[in-house]
């Protein structure tokens, strides 16, 4: 009985960390159910959406236990997802006891992301390499590198605030357009469109799109739709941010500069 409760806690915790860090919802459901099925239980159900976990199991005395876990803050840390995936597999195979597995889970949870300096440089380099992918020159590469770094600093600044993700993306889009116009007009950059397209890539909702498709394939339609809507609104926020700045620029200058 006590043992089951610990098992239940472990399963929910594992699911929560996965969901928080960018796993598909069907993977979270699957992990929770596999962990609970290691015991001979009559009822085991889990229902996961991108914003919360519901799980039910029955106890030996015939009572049913249900937990609802709301997940608010989500980041992307795919290494944690991979580690828990591996951990749950080891546990289900029986090569780890519940205590050992819970211990490892805690270690995984406290893992640190890449240091901020590396993160900021990576966003800058991702933006600048994408500028080249879409046909930018060396000058455009340098412009996007700087813009990417500014963008990363903006994101880090808002990381712990309660400001909506969509607003940060809108601001990010605006920041990109402002600096792209600045660099092109001062002669650092050459092609405005290449610089902007490369620089918006770090904001593009790649995880949401991929997970929307994968959840839909697995029949998690609710998650598929909500992630699809999330991706769409992120895209609209970025485009609006860039668009507002360009529109103002055109209105002030009365012409189009591409």
């Amino acid at each position, binding site marked *: 009985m006590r043992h089951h409760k610990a098992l239940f806690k472990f399963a929910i915790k594992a699911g929560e960390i996965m969901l928080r860090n960018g796993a598909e919802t069907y993977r979270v459901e699957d992990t929770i159910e596999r962990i609970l099925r290691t015991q001979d239980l009559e009822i085991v159900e889990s229902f996961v959406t991108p914003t919360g976990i519901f799980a039910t199991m029955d106890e030996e005395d015939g009572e049913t236990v249900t937990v609802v876990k709301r997940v608010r803050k989500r980041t992307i840390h795919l290494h944690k997802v991979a580690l828990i995936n591996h951990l749950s597999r080891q546990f289900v195979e029986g090569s780890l006891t519940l205590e050992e597995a819970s211990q490892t889970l805690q270690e995984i949870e406290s893992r640190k992301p890449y240091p901020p300096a590396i993160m900021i440089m990576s966003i800058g*380099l991702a933006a600048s390499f994408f500028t080249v992918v879409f046909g930018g020159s060396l000058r455009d590469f340098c412009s996007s590198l700087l813009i990417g770094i500014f963008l990363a600093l903006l994101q880090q600044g808002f990381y712990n605030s309660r400001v909506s993700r969509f607003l940060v993306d809108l601001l990010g889009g605006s920041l990109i357009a402002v600096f792209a116009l600045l660099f092109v007009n001062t002669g650092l950059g050459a092609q405005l469109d290449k610089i902007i397209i490369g620089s918006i890539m770090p904001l593009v909702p*790649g995880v949401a799109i*991929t997970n929307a498709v994968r959840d839909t394939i697995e029949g998690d339609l609710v998650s598929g739709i909500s992630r699809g809507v999330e991706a769409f609104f992120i895209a609209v926020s970025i485009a609006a941010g860039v668009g507002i700045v360009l529109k103002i620029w055109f209105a002030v200058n009365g012409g189009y500069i591409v």
Partner: protein
Amino acid sequence: MILPMALQIISAFFATIFFSVMFNISRKELLYCGLSGGLGWSIYLISNQLGGSIVVSTFLGALAVSFLSRYLAILRKQPVTIFLISGTIPLVPGAGMYQTMYALITQDIEQAATYGSQTLQMAGVIAIAMIIISSLPKSAPEQRKAH
């Protein structure tokens, strides 16, 4: 023609690696993520050079990424998403999104409709490619892996 293509492919490889760092993927997998992104983009470019439309080329690129990701998932004993998410990034229609928005603010509605529908089609074919590859029967090592 060959040199700019090679430059673009190498850039896609590095862009994907730096993207994978943003997603906090393990250091040991970064190279493979880069290969996934680089392969997808090279298939896209080659198809486009041979006369394939942007949508068809995106589809073929996404097919290649989905296929390679499944293989890498077995080889590296990782969840398939690690390689799929990072490899798909270069194909995500960021450019189409920008062009649609640009046409809208310059009030060129016809262009906006063209680019807008193209962007939606690109997102659609990426989804279809993932669905096709993930519906292929599981190989023996994948069945053992179970997830």
